[in-house]
């Protein structure tokens, strides 16, 4: 039986004027890759900040690794989590390696980890480069490297999309999956549903501070798929329902040799999000 490593109950966050979170509840199991999907302004970053002790929530209960993160800004707790946010900076004048070495020392891990991590984020050739001379995507990969230096129990990734640009995505996705295989729980926020589909065991849909669905991507697709297929003939494409009439139609097309292609109409997570909330993810 897996254990819940993150427990969130009726979590609410009121900024001065804005109610950013309106009582959300979910649990993340140990060893899971959990995706938090929602459009801009839905409250993803707010949730990550609360879970990582950067922000105090206004209502509800939160437990991370058995601690209330708002009250445990303690080194022992912080040493067990890793956080990648879009707004946490690097020292521009220091080299990539010096940036990482500082954090090796702060976390009390061997400085050899800095080199290992550079390899994992595909930057092994750039250790001596001052961070100020790196591109935006490279900087974000350094930040990711910094977040995994100490092999945290939970890794929080707030929109790591630019670190996962197409050129490096393979290598980095491999790194994340490898960490996950070795036991790291990953909490990922994104509005990129492809990223979520490729990585996540379960996804939660956040819209306007409320959760509107939470399940595995397959289960969501099955539940919200409209069970049709698209067939392509010389005359063009058309949608056919998956029923007896549809079966007859397809088999006729097959027999006559007119059928060129056939596709099942599985909805993407993005389609399901629109269906559930009436708005897109982007």
């Amino acid at each position, binding site marked *: 039986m897996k254990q819940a490593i993150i427990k969130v109950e009726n979590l609410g966050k009121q900024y001065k004027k804005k109610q950013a979170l309106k009582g959300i509840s979910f649990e993340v199991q140990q060893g899971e890759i959990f995706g938090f999907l929602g459009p801009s302004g839905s409250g993803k970053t707010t949730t990550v900040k609360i879970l*990582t002790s950067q922000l105090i929530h206004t209502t509800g209960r939160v437990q991370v690794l058995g601690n209330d993160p708002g009250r445990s800004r303690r080194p022992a707790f912080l040493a067990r989590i890793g956080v990648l946010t879009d707004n946490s900076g690097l020292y521009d004048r220091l080299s990539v390696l010096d940036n990482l070495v500082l954090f090796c020392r702060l976390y009390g891990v061997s400085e050899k980890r800095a080199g290992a991590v550079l390899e994992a984020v595909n930057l092994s050739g750039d250790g001596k480069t001052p961070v100020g001379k790196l591109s935006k995507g490279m900087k974000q990969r350094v930040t990711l490297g910094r977040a995994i230096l100490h092999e945290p129990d939970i890794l929080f990734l707030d929109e790591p999309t630019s670190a996962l640009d197409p050129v490096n995505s393979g290598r980095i996705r491999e790194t994340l999956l490898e960490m996950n295989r070795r036991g790291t729980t990953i909490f990922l926020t994104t509005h990129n549903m492809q990223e979520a589909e490729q990585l996540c065991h379960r996804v939660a849909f956040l819209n306007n501070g409320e959760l509107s669905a939470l399940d595995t991507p397959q289960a969501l697709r099955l539940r919200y798929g409209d069970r049709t297929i698209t067939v392509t003939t010389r005359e063009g494409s058309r949608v056919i329902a998956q029923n007896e009439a549809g079966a007859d139609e397809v088999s006729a097309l097959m027999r006559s040799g007119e059928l060129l292609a056939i596709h099942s109409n599985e909805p993407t997570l993005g389609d399901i999000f629109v269906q559930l909330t009436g708005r897109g993810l982007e």
Partner: protein
Amino acid sequence: MLSMRRFKAMVAKEWKDGIRNPHILLNAGMPILLALLFAQKDGDPADLTFLTVPILVAISITGAFVQAAMIAEEKEKNTLRALMLSPATKLEVLAGKSATTVLFALIVIAACIVISGVPDVNIAYLAILSVLLLMIFMALGTVIGLIARTASESSIVGLPVLLFFIFGPIFVPDLDVPVLMNVIRWLPSQQYVVAITELHRDGAFGSIAGQMLNLLAWTALTGALCFLAYGRQRFDK
């Protein structure tokens, strides 16, 4: 609790970063430049201004502005967030910066002394006065750094301090504005200059007891101010 390992890691980082930071180098270089300028003028050997002002400027500018710039830039570049997400505590971060500021200040003071010479006074007393003055200005620098959101803002917030605390005792005595002089008289920088002059004339501790007391009061006051700003400042919004 302060972790020695993390404190040392912070000092090593601050030093490496500081010597590459034009803003900090400028602030550290200014007193040295001033000492060089002062050394060019032929001063009256009895006038201690030539000897005390470079040290005063070295202590105050380096102490206040290097400290302020280091703290403010950490917020400006969002690196503080990363530090605060690591096991490092606010206290360790601040202690690391303070130690580095002291290091910078010692180097600048040494350079100024080499250029303009040491006032002919009891070195132990001079050292005590200087340490107190450095603590006062570092506390002010910490407050400025905590208030300012960016490194350049720290220069702007700090400018009134610069004018008032540092240039007050240098220029106001010649201005003949009694009202202003009445205020300047109580500033730690002015008390420091007066104390050194007294030490030179008399040499006994009794002659500087008043100034010593004033500096101690300033240390307590700025220390409390610093503590207040430190407590109120949430490093993470």
